């Protein structure tokens, strides 16, 4: 019988930095689905996504000592590692960043029927996110999941470069409002 210990983010980081495998197991259980979802959005291949996920967690485990809470949340740090690794992998495998991402194709609603996704949606977040405007969802997806630069986002969404930052701000503000 295993009792799942609950960690605060601070406790979790300290435990991980002292190489606590139990904490790492907890980290995996709680964050792997979200990171896997982020990878999947980019690679759209279950097997490849899981390979990258495993590699990402090895990186996280090996580099946890360099995580600094003063610079941001743990998940932000982890998704940065994961995103960079995913992009590197796609590049090394000769993939090109998918240019057709716009509108709904890679958006949350794509997973509306996915039971695996449903499992992690105990708060009904996805339902609330359905109210996010498609162009707002796109800019968040391109930046947060795809790691597009401001220039790439401007090109993909056909908007002036100077407006990317403010559009991004508006989109995330809307996201936060919906999640409240």
């Amino acid at each position, binding site marked *: 019988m295993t009792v799942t210990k609950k960690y605060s983010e601070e406790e979790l980081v300290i435990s991980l930095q002292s190489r606590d495998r139990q904490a790492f197991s907890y980290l995996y259980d709680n964050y792997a689905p979200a990171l896997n979802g982020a990878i999947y959005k980019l690679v759209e291949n279950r097997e490849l996504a899981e390979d990258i996920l495993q590699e990402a967690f090895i990186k996280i485990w090996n580099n946890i000592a360099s995580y600094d809470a003063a610079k941001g949340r743990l998940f932000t740090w982890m998704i940065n590692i994961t995103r960079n690794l995913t992009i590197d992998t796609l590049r090394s495998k000769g993939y090109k960043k998918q240019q057709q991402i716009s509108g709904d194709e890679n958006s949350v609603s794509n997973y509306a029927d996915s039971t695996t*996704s449903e499992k992690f949606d105990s708060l009904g*977040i996805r339902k609330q996110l359905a109210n996010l405007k498609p162009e707002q969802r796109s800019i*968040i997806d391109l930046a947060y999941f795809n790691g597009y630069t401001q220039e790439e986002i401007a090109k993909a969404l056909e908007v002036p470069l100077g407006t990317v930052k403010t559009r991004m701000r508006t989109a995330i503000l809307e996201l936060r409002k919906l999640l409240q």
Partner: protein
Amino acid sequence: MNVQDIISSGLLELYASGLTSKEESMQVQIWVKQYPEVAAELAAIETGLEQYAFANAQAPSASVKEALFEKIGSSNDKVSPAAKAPVKLMLVKNYWKWAAAASAALLIGSSAMNWMYYNKYTAVTAELRQNQEQALLAAQQMKDMKEDMSYVHSPFSKPVALNGMDPMPEATAKIFWMTNSGDVMIDASNLPDAPQGMQYQFWAIVDGVPVDGGMIVTNDKGQKFHMQKMKSFGKAEAFAISLEKAGGNPTPTKVVSKGII
């Protein structure tokens, strides 16, 4: 740049998405340290994006975790050289490392002592039991001997020496005949062991006729060295021992020892 301008610039959102340049990132980190409102805003942005990522979660196969833990198990806590931990954390880490090492050493030492003492304890217990058994045996022997001697010392005891006869001159024995009770005790310790399948039989000669007095044990658990009680006789002219087939005979076939009263 004032706090409101920083917050509304959109730079925090880019930073949270990992899209800022190195210089921009450092600038954001300075602001975060400087302004609690900026730190709070950044945390809120990050939390929002985090929830967004969770809404897009896809459960990986169970095999991924297994393979992962197998890999980090074999990589044996290898920390990349680029990894820089805050000094304080390193100290804590080292302290716990030493504490854990010390605890482990103490545990091993303590276990070794336990093992040693346990072995000693079992050895001493076994020795004690052995001594107790020996003491018990000695007491039993003493009791048997006292009983034997009581026949010798008894005022009613009449000793009769049985002497070896022609076929077995070495077959001697002593009889203690209790004149009050008719009990016949035999000390057969000088009788040679009976050959395989044979047994000594005791006889009392009453009115010129040999009467069976019972079988003498010479080869069973040292019984030979104790006085053995034979059948009782109120009167007899002589006692004799014969060598018979195991179990005895109704009449003696080969008399080996005899004593006249």
